[in-house]
């Protein structure tokens, strides 16, 4: 893989060039990945806490129109939606960048979800090596690290206030910077190695294989009951999660006789998520729903798609109003007999 360097000043120029080309540029603030309209707003701080809400919305928005309709008496017409703009996302931590590769599997294993795919094709990801770590982080337990470039098209490591190393990971990444070669200089491998070696990775909390072994054998369990008792079923864990991908399909009229059908984010922590029309509910209490959340992430998705449905970003725990910490819970599972 090609290794380059770019100065902070030139990185700002690169952002302005992308904006000039008409692309949407997203950067993180404390809350989310938002669009910027000039490089003045560009802050790439590797020590920043992960955004409250993950970056998945850039390829899988919380509300995604799948078509528009027009009703006129008994007639109905359907209108397809337009593909979105080309978009560049800066500053994804490895736990966010990797999530795109994880959810790509479910959107493509059989039928292909082109809403997800066309956004992925239109998206260039500039990952950023992460120096943040708190008690909720556990990327290292999910096969990642603060310097994993999985899912990034280009991967940045901030070497100093003034410069970044740039790893060109994919062809797509190579292409997007090809016009701006003069903004880059040759790599400083030694400095990069020094910086990478100085990053302290979060401690490994659990062995995901051992966790799966236990989940394989213990569907019937009272282990999740205490969590079920405190969980409010608010669904925030799924909404802030970079890998939760469940959705609802909902219609909305926006004016008389006209409207849209949408894919909306949904969450398995809601009672109505699995409620049958008859009133029967296969997951009729919160403990069962929390078991589903953990099992989907650390067993079912692995069985089905060969990947852990979690990147260890810790957002669900950081944001939980009643302090449910998935890393802690899964660590306990590892030690269960």
């Amino acid at each position, binding site marked *: 893989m090609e290794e380059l360097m770019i100065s902070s000043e030139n990185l700002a120029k690169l952002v302005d060039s992308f904006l000039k080309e008409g692309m949407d540029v997203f950067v993180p603030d404390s809350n989310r990945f938002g669009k910027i309209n000039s490089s003045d707003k560009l802050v790439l701080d590797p020590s920043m806490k992960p955004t409250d809400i993950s970056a998945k919305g850039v390829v899988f928005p919380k509300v995604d129109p*799948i*078509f528009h*309709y027009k*009703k006129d008496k*008994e*007639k*109905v017409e*359907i209108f*397809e939606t337009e*593909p979105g703009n080309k978009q560049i996302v800066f500053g994804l931590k490895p736990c966010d960048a990797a999530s795109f590769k994880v959810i790509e599997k*479910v*959107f493509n*294993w*059989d*039928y*292909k*979800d*082109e*809403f997800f795919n*066309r956004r992925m094709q239109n998206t260039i990801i500039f990952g950023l090596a992460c120096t943040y770590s708190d008690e909720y982080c556990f990327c290292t337990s999910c096969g990642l690290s603060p310097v994993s470039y999985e899912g990034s098209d280009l991967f940045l490591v901030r070497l100093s206030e003034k410069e970044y190393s740039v790893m060109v990971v994919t062809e797509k990444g190579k292409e997007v910077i090809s016009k701006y070669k003069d903004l880059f200089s040759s790599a400083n491998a030694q400095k990069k190695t020094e910086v990478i070696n100085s990053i302290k990775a979060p401690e490994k909390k659990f062995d995901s294989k051992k966790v799966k072994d236990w989940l394989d054998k213990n*569907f*019937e369990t009272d282990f999740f009951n205490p969590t079920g008792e405190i969980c409010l079923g608010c669904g925030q864990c799924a909404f802030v999660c970079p890998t939760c*991908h*469940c*959705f*609802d*399909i*909902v*219609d*909305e*009229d926006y004016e008389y006789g006209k*409207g849209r*059908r949408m*894919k909306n984010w*949904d969450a*398995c922590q809601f009672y109505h*998520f*699995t*409620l*049958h*029309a*008859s009133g*029967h509910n*296969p*997951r009729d209490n919160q403990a*069962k729903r929390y078991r*589903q959340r953990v*099992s*989907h992430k650390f*067993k*079912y*998705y692995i*069985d*089905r798609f060969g990947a852990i449905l979690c990147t260890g970003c810790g957002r669900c725990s950081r944001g939980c109003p009643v302090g449910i910490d998935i890393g802690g819970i899964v660590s306990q599972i590892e030690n269960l007999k």
Partner: protein
Amino acid sequence: MNNIYKPYLMEIKEIIDETSDTRTLRLQFRSEEDKKKFSFKAGQFAEYSVFGEGECTFCIASPPTRMDFIECSFKQVGKVTNALRRLNVGDTIGFRGPYGNWFPVEEMKGKNIVFIAGGIGLAPVRSVILNVLDRRTEFGDITIVYGARTVQDLVYKRELNKWQERKDVKTVVTVDPGGETSDWKGEIGFVPTIVEKTAPSSKNAVAIICGPPIMIKFTLPVMMKLGFEEKNIITTLENRMKCGLGKCGRCNIGNIYVCKDGPVFTYFQLKVLPQEY
């Protein structure tokens, strides 16, 4: 772009009220081209929609041997089924499908078939029954046991009568005790009891069972007693679904997607699944 969520447009050609709250719609493709390329197998399901209200999952209740219409039957329960009931003949609905697997009708050739259904659970079974009756000579003995809570709750009454008149089909219709009318001539008793009384032979036989979970639960031991093998007892699961395409994550039972790996399962397959259906 291939939009997997985009429905076909269909016209309601006929409305048949089965009971006070259950209705059958006869649908036809608005586009001739869609009609030509559409095919399905008995047991598959679809997403039906009222634009502005949303989508609902029902099986295709008509058989693949009768392609002039697609039929669905539904009970008025929630937002979309209520909206469906407000539609009239000539109105347009959305239809996505067919989805999921199907009953192994081809593997059932030459075998005796026992159909057991309760309430609106007859809808998916009806697709197979009509399919098999349309190809009657390819199959052995056919037994149908159908029950509902009351006489008023029996669906497809016009067809039940026709099946009862046929000499090449044994049809037993029952209502729960207390659900009979003064002129009721059928059986009185719960489905499992009537299955035991009817005692269909398990020799070279396949059983298809659909109905409320409680009915299935008490019918299974009877089937075991009659000597049916677990792999020859077939049912469909009714987990809540939205996409039908293995994406939205709603119908999962453990690592299976009911919308892709099902909805048709043998009792043998069901036994190894987590109890989450």
